[in-house]
């Protein structure tokens, strides 16, 4: 039987390399390459803040064996990671300087990342520095009477070597730091002529002497500290939780450092001083040949007005089921399944917005995990509360990196009169659900929206996710019970349609996998198809290996971390793993089980990771409608047949791109075309059919205004 798992950290690095590949992929527009490079840098930053921080904490705690990967010590893993990251960094800068910068130059956009490239612009830059930039700069010097500076995580600083030259020097100091005020001026300066972008640190560097009268500048290099961002909380009572998270955010800069990045060439003494004061070892130091913090390149993606250098915009398809109808009528006629961003996200926003103003709506309940900064959904919830509706929001404060935003929203919602709970003690509320209770002529009716993705209008344009609108009584009853459970009003009795983590979801998945295993052992056809973001739960992996050995054909579409080793099993079974990386971030979760011909389809908010199955509130819900199942089949088929964006996992843990040959299939395009065709076909069918006016099961008349 197959055994063994791929280290999740290494698998993640592999994933980030696939993202980085997009930054050099032929055929990607140049600004999209820039974007992917930025994403790979941002991903790497988070990886250090969380995953590397965990390993370093284990080293500090003298844990000899990492729980997530037995057999390799945390120290050994950090060493391996460093090796891979150094290679990755090398590739990032190669792509930037050899591919992206020349590519942009060809299109009349210059990224002037070298200091000597600034000299022609001195006449423009000097007044900018004197009149605007200098005021925002606060040199923080270190000396006999001056303590070492605490460098805030993720912010760029110039580390300036100083030598006092005159008595005019007020303090004896050899080292000073100046923070690059990217929050105020942006990371890049756009020249008035010539369409050039200059990193702010280079401008400061050009005129740095103006800040240090009485000193000679001996060196000037950019540095950046990355700190541990994993907030583990002591008490989780509501008032304390809010305060504790706020305090943790404020104290982020005091947490342990996990990495120091610096421009190559920095004097050894300065590097040593920074690393010593931040308790960093040699293994934590990352020299960079180029500008730091490539994450900021995303600012350029937004700033550069050159649509021809980006992916051709695609207008999301407005679903036919919602067109020309009042939203509640549309959502109430039958279940509707949408695939964003191919399908427009507008109906989701329209539903909550309509609910906020509809006098017949009694209550609205919603989970929030990651939201957008100018969220129309939250504005609708606020409006709903102000309109006297009973609004309940489960606002997950512990959504990593979104804590501050979620706190702000929590306060605004409470001020409006909404009932806000900050999640569930000890668990992150990751389920994505909305419930609207409405009084209609035929009686109380509940509308639910369930999704694999967050209620975030911005990411809904960039991530591919599935969402379901339903008024099915079993489903809406379960979601109602779920909200009562999450708000502490009630325990749950039985779930009629859904399955919840952490109470039942793991057992459910195990039963479903074991059922396939049993069918295979009894000589029946057995298959599992699962699409998710990450797969690294050891218990699930073990069951999948057993299933494969029994003869189950297992097809996995895993975007990111995948710890299972693919390959053929005995008795005709197999495990295959593909990953789709491209224009949209694959985020949906689909689970299919052949079940001896009585197929079962599920959508979920959860991946096959321990944190999802055991430490989060997650939701699994079935898809029963034959047309919707057919739709899911088609999506999976199109993705599995992709030759442009698809990577296959090999048993050695490496990914290879599928050889397209002449048969080029871009699943992103093909899915969009498919959905557009289907929606157009619906429109045609609707126009042609004579629809009789009858009373529906709710005793109202179809076509009758509510």
């Amino acid at each position, binding site marked *: 039987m197959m055994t063994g798992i791929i280290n999740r950290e290494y698998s993640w690095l592999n994933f980030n390399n696939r993202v980085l590949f997009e930054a050099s992929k032929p055929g990607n527009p140049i600004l999209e390459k820039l974007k992917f490079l930025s994403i790979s840098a941002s991903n790497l930053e988070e990886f250090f803040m969380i995953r590397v921080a965990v390993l370093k904490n284990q080293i500090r705690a003298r844990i000899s064996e990492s729980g997530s990967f037995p057999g390799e010590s945390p120290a050994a893993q950090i060493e391996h990671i460093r090796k891979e990251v150094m290679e990755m960094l090398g590739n990032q800068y190669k792509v930037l300087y050899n591919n992206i910068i020349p590519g942009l130059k060809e299109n009349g956009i210059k990224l002037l990342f070298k200091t000597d490239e600034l000299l022609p612009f001195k006449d423009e830059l000097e007044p900018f520095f004197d009149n605007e930039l200098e005021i925002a700069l606060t040199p923080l010097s270190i000396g006999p009477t001056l303590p070492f500076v605490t460098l805030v995580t993720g912010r760029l600083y110039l580390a300036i070597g100083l030598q006092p030259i005159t008595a005019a020097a007020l303090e004896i100091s050899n080292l000073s730091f100046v923070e690059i005020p990217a929050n105020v001026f942006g990371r890049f300066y756009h020249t008035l002529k010539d369409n050039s972008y200059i990193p702010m640190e280079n401008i400061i560097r050009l005129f740095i002497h103006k800040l240090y009268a009485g000193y000679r500048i001996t060196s000037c290099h950019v540095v950046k500290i990355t700190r541990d961002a994993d907030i583990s909380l002591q008490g989780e009572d509501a008032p304390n939780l809010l305060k504790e998270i706020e305090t943790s955010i404020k104290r982020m800069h005091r947490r342990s450092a996990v990495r120091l990045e610096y421009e190559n060439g920095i004097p050894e003494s300065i590097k040593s001083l920074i690393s010593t004061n931040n308790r960093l070892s040699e293994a934590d130091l990352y020299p960079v040949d180029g500008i730091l913090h490539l994450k900021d390149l995303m600012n350029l993606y937004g700033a550069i007005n050159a649509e021809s250098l980006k992916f051709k915009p695609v207008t999301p398809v407005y679903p036919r089921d919602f067109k020309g109808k009042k939203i509640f009528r549309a959502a109430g006629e039958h279940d509707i399944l949408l695939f964003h961003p191919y399908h427009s996200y507008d109906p989701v926003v329209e539903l909550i917005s309509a609910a906020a103003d509809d006098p017949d709506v*009694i*209550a609205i309940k919603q989970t929030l995990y990651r939201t957008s900064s100018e969220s129309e959904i939250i504005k609708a919830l606020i409006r709903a509360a102000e309109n006297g509706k*009973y609004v*309940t929001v489960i606002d997950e404060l512990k959504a990593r990196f979104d804590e501050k935003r979620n706190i702000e929203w929590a306060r605004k919602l409470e001020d409006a009169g909404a*009932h806000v709970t900050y999640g569930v003690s000890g668990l992150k509320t990751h389920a994505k659900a909305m419930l609207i*209770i409405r*009084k209609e*002529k*035929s*009686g*109380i009716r509940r509308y639910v929206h369930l999704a694999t993705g967050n209620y975030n209008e911005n990411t809904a344009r960039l991530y591919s996710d599935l969402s379901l609108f339903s008024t099915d009584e079993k489903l809406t009853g379960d979601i*109602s*019970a779920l909200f*009562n459970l999450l708000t*502490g*009003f*009630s*325990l749950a*009795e*039985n779930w009629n349609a859904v399955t919840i983590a952490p109470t*039942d979801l793991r*057992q459910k998945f195990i039963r479903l996998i074991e059922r396939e295993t049993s069918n295979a052992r009894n000589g029946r056809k057995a298959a599992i198809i699962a699409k998710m973001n990450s797969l690294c739960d050891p218990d699930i992996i073990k069951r999948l290996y057993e299933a494969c050995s029994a003869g189950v054909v297992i097809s996995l579409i895993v975007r990111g971390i995948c710890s299972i080793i693919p390959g053929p099993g005995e008795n005709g079974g197999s495990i295959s793993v593909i990953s789709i990386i491209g224009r949209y971030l694959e985020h949906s979760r689909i689970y299919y089980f052949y079940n001896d011909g009585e197929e079962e389809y599920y959508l979920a908010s959860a991946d096959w990771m321990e944190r999802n199955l055991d430490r989060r509130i997650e939701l699994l819900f079935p898809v029963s409608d034959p047309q919707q199942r057919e739709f899911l089949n088609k999506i999976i088929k199109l993705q599995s047949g992709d030759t442009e964006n698809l990577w296959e996992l090999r048993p050695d843990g490496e990914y290879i791109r599928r050889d397209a040959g002449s048969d080029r299939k871009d699943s992103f395009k093909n899915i969009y075309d498919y959905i557009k065709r289907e929606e157009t076909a619906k429109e045609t069918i609707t126009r042609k059919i004579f629809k009789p006016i009858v009373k529906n099961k709710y005793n109202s008349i179809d076509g009758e205004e509510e």
Partner: protein
Amino acid sequence: MKENKLIAVIDIGSHTIKMHIAEISKKKDISPVEYLWNPIGIGRDTLGKGFITNQTIQEVIQSVNKFREVIAGYRISSFKTYITSNIRESGNSDVLIERLRKASGVTVEISEPSEESEIVYEGIKNQIKNRYSFNKKNFVLFSIGAGSTHIILQSKGKIIFSETHHIGTIKFAKDYNYDDKFQFALNPFSMSFQSTLKRFPDIKKIDGFIGINEDILPLAQKIFHDYLTGGMFIVPRKDFNKYFAQIENMSLDRIKDKYQISDTMLKTSKITFILFGMFYNLTAAPNIIIPNVNPSFFNLYKIVFTKNKALKTEIRENIISSALSLGKKYQFDRAHADAVTRLSLAIFDELSKNYDFSERERIYLEVASLLHDIGYFVGTTSHNKHSSQLISSSEIIGLQRTEMNVIGQIARYHRKSPPKPSHTEYIELSMEDRMTVSRMSSILRIADALDNTHSQIVEDLKVNIIPEKCEILVRIKNNRYDFLDIIRNAVKKKSDLFESFYGILVTVEKLV
């Protein structure tokens, strides 16, 4: 009702506090909207400590406050809160009720055992409607709760017997040891049930057995899903007994694993399954019927149908049929009881034109008239006192405990001494109830006197209330007016209470 209305009921039980929110249609159909519940430890505290702890009181208050929030969210303007009668077994039930009132503003109504039985019965009736010949055949309703068990016997649509035992799944769970001792522990209970059935020999067989319990539902939904029809699991005997044997021999872990039953309900669902099996097999009913509905939902029917006139008639009919069954149990003189009842109600109806009697008092009088002589079962001497005790300790669906006490007192005073300050049970009644007892027993005394000979000689009567006189005009059977003086004397002896209470003389004349 212009549009559908939302109602809510909170049910504080022995080990759970529940709330149902439902919608009533214009046709008075009740559709569930929400169901919430939380565990509480009233039963555990009462069993273990004899009083409800402060922590449990706090938990109850917290749950009620949360439920009230949900009620407010649905904009429900009024709701009812009931608490189980078992709460009286704890020493500080008043404390809980008062603290709940102060902290939540909620006034709690204590459900009487007979009321709980009534709720179960009405609930089942509304669920089953006219199916399975429910109104034409003989059914046993066996409702097991956390703290009490109700057994109701129904024959041809009328309740003929109901009994509440203050023992439920919590106590059973405490006694259940996974071996056959459990069966023996239940022996007294099952023997009592068997003897109850035997007491109604005209019920040759039980046509249907309805088992009602909340905790068994998840298990029933898994095992009997193929037998679900119209909201009920209708399981033939053979099939049920097959599963019964399996469940009886399955460990709790195995049941949990196989049927995915949550820990909170695991033990009680197995116990209930076994209890259902044991009692169902004491009958010959071809099927066991298990409604797929949480019994606490039935509380909603109480709110909806309280003012329903048709239901009031039905409740009255059930009360009378139960009273008749009780009379049969104690081998009463049916003909005399019927005659006294007829006569007392005739007097009542005429008096009610001048005096403000309530419908409830009429029922009390009717039941007391039927049962006034059941005390003879115990002994001839002071049979009226025996009648009172037997009535007070019996259960009739539709009548609360306090009402049975009042009826008992009415029956007590049908002969001999009228109420006196030295009569403890009488003095312990409220002023209002004492008035009722005096008013009704005074009528009963006269009616009993009119059938003094127990030969139903007065076949008709008319009552005239004229100034300062109550004239009772009688038609005697076969024109045997030579009995008129005997009747007059009997009435004279027993009209003392009437005359002193109503301040008018009672005379008996021939009805011309």
